[in-house]
């Protein structure tokens, strides 16, 4: 027995054990607090519950005009989503005409989809509650400076389309004639909230109105943006939508974690029974492998999805492969009459090319999945790639180191311990 090496081996097991414990249950010592991984890793919406919609603009617009319309649409959706109180909404343009909205961990996903999907939300209402015109009639709205007797003041300039100009002219002509100030107001409402209530001073017949008031430049800008943004420039159609109730996602998560646990346990036992001492080192390597994958997902900000977990569990099964390849080679070398120590060296060396070649070809599939995959499939690709890289690292470096350590500790000639 080599005391120093034995201690080192035990120390490694202790560190790996502690790290796994921390990952599983979290740890709290004085001021240091590490939360368990399952609470700190980002969950995709199939696990956290939530909404996923792909919207496509129904329009013939092209080029710069289309781009402007889409940017505006994203702005409106962003604003609407803000009101829902989602922690990390993701609203991205998927292609020139498509927007993908993902809201994870939302309590009432169905309501959310309703709110996102609504189109024309901006209304101009007269004091009697009649709609004068709607957001689609607003051609432009921008902040401007207007000369007054008190100097240049920021105002919001509105411009309506042909239909809007006519309607606005009719309404302002009627309202301007009223005696009472309260009867001359036009309420501008966005999603049911009044965002501005200008008073009509005179009939506006050219389709170009100005809202003046005690605005700061910023306020004028905001109002102009709101009015412009409220006018969803294009109709959006939901091409694809997915709603996952919060409890269902949680159940899927629990069950997948359970599946992963059972799978790991089975693989541990299998390796231990079949390969004995090398099996033990492989199991330590495998534990490190799982830690590497899970923590790199956490730090790369990869969201854990259902197919992602499936990919992870599958990769654990496959991660054993490199070890199995190497151990079979070692056994072969031992059977050929080499010493255990020499067999380990030769086994690793001879298995290396097949480990590399076989994993790199699989990596090619992983990258293709990642680049061309859609939605959750991408998540599957990421875990596959991470899994393959981590498994090569652990089996080629860590398991090898541990295995050599065991030989130095016991210096045994008992090849049975090595599964022969």
């Amino acid at each position, binding site marked *: 027995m080599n005391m120093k090496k034995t201690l080192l081996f035990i120390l490694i097991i202790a560190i790996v054990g502690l790290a796994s414990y921390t990952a599983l249950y979290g740890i709290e010592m004085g001021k240091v607090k590490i939360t368990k991984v399952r609470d700190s890793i980002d969950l995709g919406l199939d696990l956290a519950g939530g909404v996923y919609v792909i919207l496509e603009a129904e329009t013939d617009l092209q080029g710069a005009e289309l781009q402007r319309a889409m940017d505006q649409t994203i702005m409106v959706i962003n604003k609407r989503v803000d009101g829902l109180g989602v922690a990390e909404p993701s609203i991205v343009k998927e292609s020139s005409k498509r927007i993908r909205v993902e809201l994870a961990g939302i309590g009432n996903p169905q309501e959310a989809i309703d709110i996102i999907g609504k189109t024309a939300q901006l209304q101009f209402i007269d004091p009697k509650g009649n709609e004068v015109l709607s957001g689609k009639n607003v051609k432009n709205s921008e902040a401007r400076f207007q000369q007054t007797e008190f100097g240049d003041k920021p105002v919001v300039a509105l411009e309506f389309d042909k239909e809007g100009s006519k309607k606005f002219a009719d309404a302002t002509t009627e309202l301007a004639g009223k005696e009472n100030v309260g009867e001359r107001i036009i309420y501008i409402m966005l999603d049911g909230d009044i965002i501005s209530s200008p008073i009509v001073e005179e009939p506006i017949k050219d389709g170009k109105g100005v809202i003046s008031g005690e605005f700061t430049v910023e306020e004028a800008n905001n109002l102009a943006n709101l009015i412009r943004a409220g006018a969803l420039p294009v109709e959006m159609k939901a091409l*694809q939508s997915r709603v996952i109730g919060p409890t269902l996602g949680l*159940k899927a998560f629990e069950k997948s974690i359970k599946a992963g646990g059972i799978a790991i346990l089975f693989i541990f036992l299998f390796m231990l029974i079949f390969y004995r001492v090398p099996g033990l080192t492989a199991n330590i390597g495998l534990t490190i492998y799982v830690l590497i994958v899970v923590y790199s997902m956490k730090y790369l900000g990869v969201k854990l999805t259902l197919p992602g977990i499936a990919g992870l569990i599958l990769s654990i*099964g496959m991660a054993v*492969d490199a070890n199995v390849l190497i151990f079979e080679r070692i056994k072969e070398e031992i059977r050929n009459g080499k010493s255990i120590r020499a067999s380990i060296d030769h086994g690793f060396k001879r298995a290396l090319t097949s480990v590399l070649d076989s994993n790199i070809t*699989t990596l090619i599939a992983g990258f293709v*999945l990642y*680049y061309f995959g859609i939605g959750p*499939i991408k998540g599957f690709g990421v875990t*596959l790639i991470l899994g393959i890289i981590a498994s090569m690292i652990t089996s080629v470096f860590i398991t090898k180191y541990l295995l050599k350590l065991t030989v130095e500790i016991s210096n045994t000639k008992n090849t049975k311990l090595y599964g022969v």
Partner: protein
Amino acid sequence: MNIIKNRKIFYSISLAIIIVGLIMMVAKGLNYGIDFTGGTSIQIKIGKMVTVEEIREIIDEYDNSASVVHVGNNKDEIIIKSSKDFDNEEINGIVDKFVEKYDIETKEFQSEKFVATMGDEIKKKALLSSFIAAVGMLVYITWRFEFKFAIAAIIALIHDVLITLSIYAIFGIPANNSFIAAILTILGYSINDTIVIFDRIREETRLNPRHSLEKLINDSVKKSLTRTINTSITTLAAVVILYIVGVEDVKVLALPLIFGIISGTYSSLFIASPIWYALKNREGFKTKKA
């Protein structure tokens, strides 16, 4: 074990499965999921087993050709699939009616909908990504081994895809989004297996340049056998456990993987090498000096 001598038997087994699969595919087509065909799927946990007739009372109002399937351990969950592309209001309406009728407290539900045109896009993407993956592998194997190994490996992969498709057709497994992930994973797994054996053949050829091609292949497969079986066992175990424990969405991903891994292992052992042998024999085998 003589792989090369018995190769016709191995080819026949695969061919038989593929032919049955192709017949099924022509006869009743693949059971495409709604992401390919367009439509709506709603899954609700009711909390007790409810007869299809009762469910129909609610659903027929929206679509009387919608299908209803019971899932979950106690059959207390239902999945409603309609080829119609319901809008959000309709989906909400259906869910609310169930919640009301059966006093469902925890709203365990999910819904999914796709318009029909998405299906063609996904199909195109799937084909394109498989093709790109295949080309990538072809280039890599040609560089590391030789072109004939690459061709044999790709043929083995096509074999696996055909077998998996046949399994989908024979068992009527819904082919949806995860179908593409399943196929690509099987490709990745199978190529991994095949390369390990090819690597062994490459090595044996170098060590024993005088041996016949047939002996080289048989020896290589024999020497890789324990590894191939053990890796298949651990990987299969992981996937089978996923299938048993996992939720419905995971099951549809795990099931084809189970068959795919078996097919991948089979093709690596019994299809890839014999095909390489056949390719090699056409040029007349010349042993290479190490």
